[in-house]
């Protein structure tokens, strides 16, 4: 609420609907807050020491004697880092205007926080990122060569690109895949080549959306995906946060059990081999066997004929 006061003081005549739009606060909430303000001020709360609010017939809001709230409250560290990180991240995306208003805004915010040179954001530079973003914007159909790790093969597909986004440290292309006849997510760094087919796509079948968790777009567990139960030592507990687990159950001594839907066994093999003694596959038995077999296969390169 106090965030609005400086704006009202410097923009006399602003109306409640305008305030609601600018600050994305419900108009009724603003009205309630404005009703509250006249009771606020300084001791002894006599008429000359209270905040005066009046709303004119045409809806214009005016404030008097609120000089203590004339200037905005400073940014908290959480607000500061959110603004600065977002600014740097957007400037790191290919095609960003590094001399434009975002760059100058970021300089001003950083100066106010004393954070100049204190934050750097790298969102990775996948090779065809700019071309994919253009294709989404221009609704161009694409033919892509894509390496599927799960199936250990290179595939060529025709796709209708809907969205390019970055989550969990990687760039993804959400698109309708004509080979699969379904919406698919492709990791941009596994796309070996991109070619426009010349066709224009009607409208994205994958909803562009303006809210919602980008992370949720990344992996949609299917009902018939294998559910694997892993017991994680404290060292590996970060897995519970970074992967789309279905359940997380804390156990004694900092361990944690998770149920993870797995669509490609190769993924499970790589995950467990990478974590080593920090993870135990509890169930199902076939998952334990798959992992042990993978470890044996890799070991046989080092100890052939053992």
């Amino acid at each position, binding site marked *: 609420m106090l965030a609005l006061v400086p704006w009202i003081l410097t923009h006399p005549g602003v109306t409640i609907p305008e305030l609601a739009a600018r600050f994305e606060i419900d108009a009724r909430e603003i009205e309630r807050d404005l009703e509250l303000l006249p009771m606020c001020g300084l001791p002894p709360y006599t008429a000359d020491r209270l905040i005066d609010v009046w709303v004119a017939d045409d809806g214009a809001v005016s404030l008097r004697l609120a000089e203590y709230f004339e200037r*905005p409250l400073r940014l908290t560290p959480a607000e500061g880092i959110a603004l600065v990180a977002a600014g740097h991240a957007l400037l790191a995306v290919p095609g960003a205007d590094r001399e434009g208003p975002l760059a100058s805004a970021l300089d001003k915010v950083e100066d106010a926080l004393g954070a100049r040179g204190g934050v750097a954001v790298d969102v990775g530079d996948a090779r065809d990122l700019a071309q994919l973003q253009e294709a989404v914007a221009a609704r161009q159909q694409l033919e892509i060569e894509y390496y599927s790790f799960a199936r250990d093969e290179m595939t060529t597909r025709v796709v209708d690109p809907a969205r390019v986004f970055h989550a969990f440290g990687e760039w993804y292309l959400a698109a309708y895949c004509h080979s699969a006849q379904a919406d698919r997510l492709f990791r941009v760094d596994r796309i070996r080549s991109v070619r426009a087919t010349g066709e224009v796509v009607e409208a994205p079948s994958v909803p562009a959306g303006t809210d919602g968790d980008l992370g949720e777009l990344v992996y949609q567990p299917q009902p018939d995906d294998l559910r694997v139960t892993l017991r994680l030592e404290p060292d590996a507990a970060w897995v519970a946060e970074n992967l789309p687990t279905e359940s997380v159950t804390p156990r004694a001594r900092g361990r944690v059990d998770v149920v993870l839907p797995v669509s490609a066994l190769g993924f499970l093999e790589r995950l467990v081999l990478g974590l*080593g003694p920090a993870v135990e596959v509890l169930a199902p038995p076939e998952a334990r066997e798959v992992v042990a077999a993978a470890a044996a296969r890799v070991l046989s390169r*080092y100890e052939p004929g053992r």
Partner: protein
Amino acid sequence: MTDRVERLVNLTATLLDTRRPLSLEELAERLEPAYPTEKSARRRAFERDKETLRDLGVPVTVETVDGLGGEPGYRIRPDDYYLPDLGLTADERAALHVAITAVRLVGGAGREGLRKLGGFEGTAAVPLAELEATPALPDLFDAVTKRRVVSFEYRGEPRRLEPYGVVHRFGHWYVVGRDQERQAPRAFRVDRIEGAPAYGDAAAFVSPPDVDPAEYLRADPLTYGDEQPVQAQVLVDASRAAWVVDELGEAVVTERRADGAVVVELSVVNRSAFRTWVLGLLEHAEVLAPEELRRDVVEWLRGLTGVAR
């Protein structure tokens, strides 16, 4: 509920208005709606209000003042409270609006921050990127801006860091700076800090001029860490060779074999990151040298082939 909001606004105004710190008794005399008269209830109510204000970013300072007989005195120093006028233009505000809607710091307070800067100018962007965030990040960022030494446990060892910056790379946040004990630059993954860090006083050190925090994290995640680097040779099968070369660059290739396999050479400091990377290639890669890294991988795998645990 509204009583409390009123009191919070009045408390803020009173603490800003005063020229000297005020004791709780003095505040209780002045504020409306009044605090409870019973002493401990009054203290509890005030402490709650103070916490709420602090959570909002209102910097209530506590000072012991002689004139108050040893009682703590409270006020808000105007310089601490107010945002200096940034002089943001409408275009700049619109650009920030696009930035915080295009890029979301998970659990972040970008929207609140933008409200303080004058609200949501222009149109929102379609979400483009999500950055991981960890609970320690805002306080570490604060330590960077205020130049506070940070102490924390990392891989079981106590560390003391002069933080020069926070860096987001490979999907994770790192705090970088100078390790006071080792007297050397270091980078630490924020989500691997064990427990809650402790922060020292502000202005405790001087950052080197023109520090680039990204430099502290060399390009390869395999190369940050404490141990001496070793040169590793890895044989990668034809089926994965193209990918590995794409990922690491042509310069790492030391040999190309007739069957399409390649031998690559890597500078390794972080052994566990290296092991994770090699094992990610499953049976399509083999550590050729040095013997210590090869042995490390074999021991690791042997531990995994015993299914019954």
